[in-house]
């Protein structure tokens, strides 16, 4: 598969100083654009010491926000895994009319501004929305409550799992599944023993990305949360609140915690990639 490369030939024709400069520019940009903001968040959080930062994130409103954020992620991520897997399965393994439309629909949340998504949910489920009267008659609260926040998060994170799975599933084709069926496997048995093992890495990436975004979403949730302290404030919303209340150590401690969760997700992804490099390569069949 791999080409043999003679050690004396350079891939590039540019001079060495030019390449070094280019590398330095890239590294500097990365430092300025990615590392510096992150470093500032952590520096600000620990400005009054680690104990103060810890105090801030264990305060009542902060604990409630952390709990709410984890709850929302715990509901939204599994639902998106099921929906994303089903959608990717349908798109990759079957031919049907309107397939292109379905693919575009899955991408819709990427192109729609989160604020618009939040407003659309208010228009649909709000007191004067299309479903408002019916919801009120059945004493169901959606907007400015947990269900609304979950719906907004589901909308925003919908593409993540499907988008990771579609290319892998398409590439793998349907030969193995067909073989399993021919050998007498039931549908569920086939999914469990053939399809899922083949896409498990892509699925895991999808879950991790989906989780990171679910915890971090601000725009759509801000519209639909009602900003009730300790009730409907997720971590990103509370960060903004703390900042606006001149509690910058509290704001940045929460921000550091949220960034920490995201970094943990990234670290987990990198660790799995590194630890299972062979399996990943095999599953991609390169």
């Amino acid at each position, binding site marked *: 598969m791999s080409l043999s490369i003679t050690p004396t030939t350079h891939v590039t024709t540019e001079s060495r100083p030019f390449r070094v400069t280019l590398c330095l520019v890239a590294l500097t940009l990365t430092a300025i654009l990615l590392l510096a903001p992150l470093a500032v968040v952590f520096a600000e959080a620990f400005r009054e010491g680690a104990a103060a930062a810890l105090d801030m994130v264990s305060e009542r409103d902060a*604990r409630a926000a952390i*709990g709410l954020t*984890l709850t929302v*992620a715990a509901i939204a991520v599994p639902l998106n895994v099921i929906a994303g897997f089903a959608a990717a399965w349908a798109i990759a393994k079957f031919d049907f009319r309107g397939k292109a439309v379905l693919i575009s629909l899955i991408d819709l949340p990427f192109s729609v501004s989160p604020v618009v998504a939040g407003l659309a949910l208010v228009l649909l489920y709000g007191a004067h*929305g299309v479903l408002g009267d019916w919801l009120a008659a059945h004493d169901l609260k959606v907007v400015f409550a947990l269900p609304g926040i979950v719906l907004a998060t589901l909308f925003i994170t919908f593409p993540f799992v499907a988008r990771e799975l579609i290319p892998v599933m398409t590439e793998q084709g349907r030969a193995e599944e067909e073989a399993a069926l021919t050998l007498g496997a039931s549908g569920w048995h086939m999914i*469990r023993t053939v399809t899922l093992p083949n896409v498990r890495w892509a699925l895991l990436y999808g*879950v991790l990305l989906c989780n990171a975004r679910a915890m971090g979403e601000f725009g759509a949730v801000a519209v639909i949360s009602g*900003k009730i302290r300790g009730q409907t404030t997720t971590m990103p919303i509370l960060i903004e609140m703390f900042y*606006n209340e001149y509690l910058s150590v509290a704001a940045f401690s929460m921000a550091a915690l949220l960034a920490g969760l995201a970094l943990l997700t990234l670290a987990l992804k990198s660790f799995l990639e590194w630890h299972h490099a062979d399996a990943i390569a095999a599953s991609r069949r390169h």
Partner: protein
Amino acid sequence: MTPFILRHGRAPLLAALLAGTSLGTPAHAETTLLNVSYDPTREFYRAYNDLFNDWWTAQGNEPVTIEQSHGGSGAQARAVIDGLEAQVVTLALASDIDAIAGNSDVVPEDWQKTLPHNSAPYTSTIVFLVREGNPKGIKDWGDLVGDGVQVITPNPKTSGGARWNFLAAWGWALKTMDGDEDAALDFTRKLYANVPVLDTGARGATTTFAQRGVGDVLLAWENEAFLALAEIGEDKFDIVVPSVSILAEPPVALVEGNLDDEQRRVATAYLEHLYSPEAQALALANYYRAWDTSKAAPEDADRFPELDLVIIEEFGGWAEAQPRFFGDGGIFDQIYSE
């Protein structure tokens, strides 16, 4: 090949996530009120909720849980209209509560007659916050339209404070230009040409000015200006009091449509107690101009400079001023769309 995800991946992750959920669900045995308020009242209501609970339990009642939601006044009114279940609203101006009354049936039309002083337990006015030493030499409204002066004020479409700002500017222009409305229009047009960014709420604008360092002068609620000095440092900013400003009356109201019997009893007491000498002293300590100074510390009561205040009635009340100045195609739209 083992199906990694199914056997090892999701279950522990889910369990870990679900374990966190118990943190976010407090018990709901007692009566709960939601106070939907505007931006700069965060510190005041945090203190008042404690004061009210102490007084309420001293009367032999069960303690109440009071939840707070803060944001731009117009945006908060919008949320109540869309179904945010507030039991009381404490907003920046009457027209936002009028909007709730007009667009839903949770607040009665005559809400403003139920409590003293047009249902405004405290008032404030609009002043300027400038950087230490007042480097641009800003003394009055006329200095705001100079070249190179950046003015920070929020968006009147979403912020109550911003509407008071606008009308204060308009009031000064009419007084100094012999009531010439064309001149006032020209003045406000130049003023808003100097505004680089419109935040949605008063607190966002204060943050933009004070913490992000944008602009030369912030048109601020007087209480916001004092609070910024107290929180960020007296050595960073100066307050400039213009010759003319406006009497800003932030009103409060029960949201009748969202009350059960017990909530009605508590919420009524909650709003009425705002007029008690103790609560009035608390409002004064939080830099509001309250009515009753009998229990206030002298330094809180004497803090406020005397100035010439126009009142909303001079604009025909909010019922007239709101559509004329801030409605669709109103005066603000005309000057800002250019």
